């Protein structure tokens, strides 16, 4: 009797836990499913057909959004910005983090804490002076202006994370390379960078998320439609045709899918990233 009661309690506990987790998981997935579903409908059926799986699949929205609404261009712009900013951050941050961790020069701590402080101080209105500066430099409506701004945004976090990683990394291989006559730059490129791959994966995914999803600076700095990234294009599209939901949903699908796929592919690095973050901070 007692054992049966104990088992019954355990089963009901397991059931209620799964019920809670399952319910929340459902609310996480359903909006995305609904977006995907509506992107396959026409303007006529989307308002009336409420079946879970639509009765007829219609691919026209994706063609329309890519060609007529030029989302192909915006998609490529987003890819260009994300790829350039992420590679710039990986190179610049790993150079700096390597130097902070391994090399000696006067004022090292000062410069390091300068980057750390920038991460701690929230500056919510900084887009105003940043816009003024970019305007002064004549970089409004240029790819390079936006790329430089966004590179700076991700720099502090990436330097801190990589430095923490280098600090814990064994120096044996680097010492061996030095004895073999490899220069500092060579050691950074041939030894340290490949060994830091797990930490690089973390900064790649977080910075890619950040750039792909960024809106405020894109809104201010890129008014030329040929240079707009996806997020801004979606906002403009919604402003222009507020009722074409199927096409809007197709656009949202295009903007959401690459980042969801990147996340699913690099998922294990995210949990790892949080444990680095915990030790770094």
């Amino acid at each position, binding site marked *: 009797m007692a054992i049966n009661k104990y088992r019954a309690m355990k089963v009901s506990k397991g059931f209620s836990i799964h019920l809670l987790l399952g319910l929340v998981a459902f609310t996480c997935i359903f909006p995305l499913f609904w977006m995907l579903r509506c992107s396959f409908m026409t303007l006529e059926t989307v308002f009336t057909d409420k079946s879970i799986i639509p009765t007829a699949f219609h691919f026209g929205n994706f063609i329309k959004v890519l060609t007529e609404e030029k989302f192909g261009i915006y998609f490529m712009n987003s890819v260009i910005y994300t790829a350039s900013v992420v590679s710039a951050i990986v190179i610049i941050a790993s150079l700096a983090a390597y130097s902070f961790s391994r090399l000696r020069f*006067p004022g090292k701590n000062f410069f390091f804490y300068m980057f750390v402080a920038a991460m701690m101080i929230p500056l*919510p209105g900084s887009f105003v*002076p940043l816009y003024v500066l970019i305007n002064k430099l004549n970089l409004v409506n240029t790819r390079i202006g936006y790329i430089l701004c966004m590179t700076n945004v991700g720099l502090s976090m990436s330097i801190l994370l990589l430095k923490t990683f280098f600090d814990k990394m064994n120096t044996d291989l680097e010492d061996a390379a030095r004895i073999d006559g490899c220069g500092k730059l060579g050691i950074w490129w041939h030894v340290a960078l490949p060994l830091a791959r797990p930490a690089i994966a973390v900064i790649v995914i977080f910075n890619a*998320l950040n750039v792909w999803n960024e*809106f405020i600076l894109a809104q201010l700095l890129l008014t030329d439609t040929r240079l707009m990234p996806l997020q801004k294009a979606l906002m403009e599209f919604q402003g222009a045709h507020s009722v074409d939901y199927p096409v809007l949903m197709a656009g949202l699908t295009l903007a959401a899918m690459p980042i969801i796929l990147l996340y699913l592919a690099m998922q294990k690095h995210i949990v790892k990233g949080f444990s680095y973050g915990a030790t770094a901070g």
Partner: protein
Amino acid sequence: MTSLAQRKKFTMGDAKESLVNFSFILPAVILFSIFYIYPFYDIFRLSLHEWNGIDAQKYYVHFDNFKELFKDGNWWRSMWHAGIITFFALTFQNVMAFALALACDQKIRMKKFYRMIFFIPPVLSEVVVGFIWMWILNGDMQSGEYIGILNYLLDKMGLHHLITSWLSNPDTVLTCIALVHCWKGFGWGFIMLFAGLQTIDAQLYEAARVDGANSWQIFKNITIPMMVPVILVVIFLTVLGSMQVFVLIKAMVGQGLQDYTSVPVSEIFESMIGLKRFGYACAQGVSFGVTLITISLVFKLLSTKVKQY
């Protein structure tokens, strides 16, 4: 001994080596100086001026922008709205995140699956999340049927009294925004709290159980004290993130219902783009930043206090 002697004498070789080592951080320092330090200085300078952002002439107005801001009802109202959203995030979102992290920390199946799903909303952009929910919460009707799925389901379930146009009703719009913000954000808290729970030594739990402690006692006397540092970080990040919400609201309601949905960042945007008052926008940014820094310093103090126990 020899190394100590070498260190004392700073030779030309050392200077050259320092210069080479410094050159590794040079690209980062240059970018940082131009795109962080200079704007940081500029926001303070501009906040003391009246300037439309175009003219060469800026008028130095001393602290007038700040005085005006202090009496600006719209500004305080926007702070109030952000405060309400932050309140939702601190209570509902964080309790939810903690409950889910605890549930995932049990010995159950499909743990990895749930963990994977819960972090999908945080990877989406605010624009995407805002538009998806705007469509779900749509309050319009077409040929006798509700077009938003939420109202449609409420209608079919017979809950007619709950049906409303969620995002154009002043009574519901801010709550809807806050809940969508929680939906998008709980995954961050979840994953940090989950990572924290994983670091607690299982032997502690076992020892407590051997001593006859029940689940509630274990939770209160082991889990909570061990998790305090992580909880504080999550609270801190929740406050900073929620106070600065803006793009989500812009996507969900656009320019509509400004009186009920304005937040500090949207006010800064409006001062800059709409009113062309760059100085005033900077003053708003500075005082908002100072508010947030004060909050974070209080948390810093709290967390060092707590860690001492």
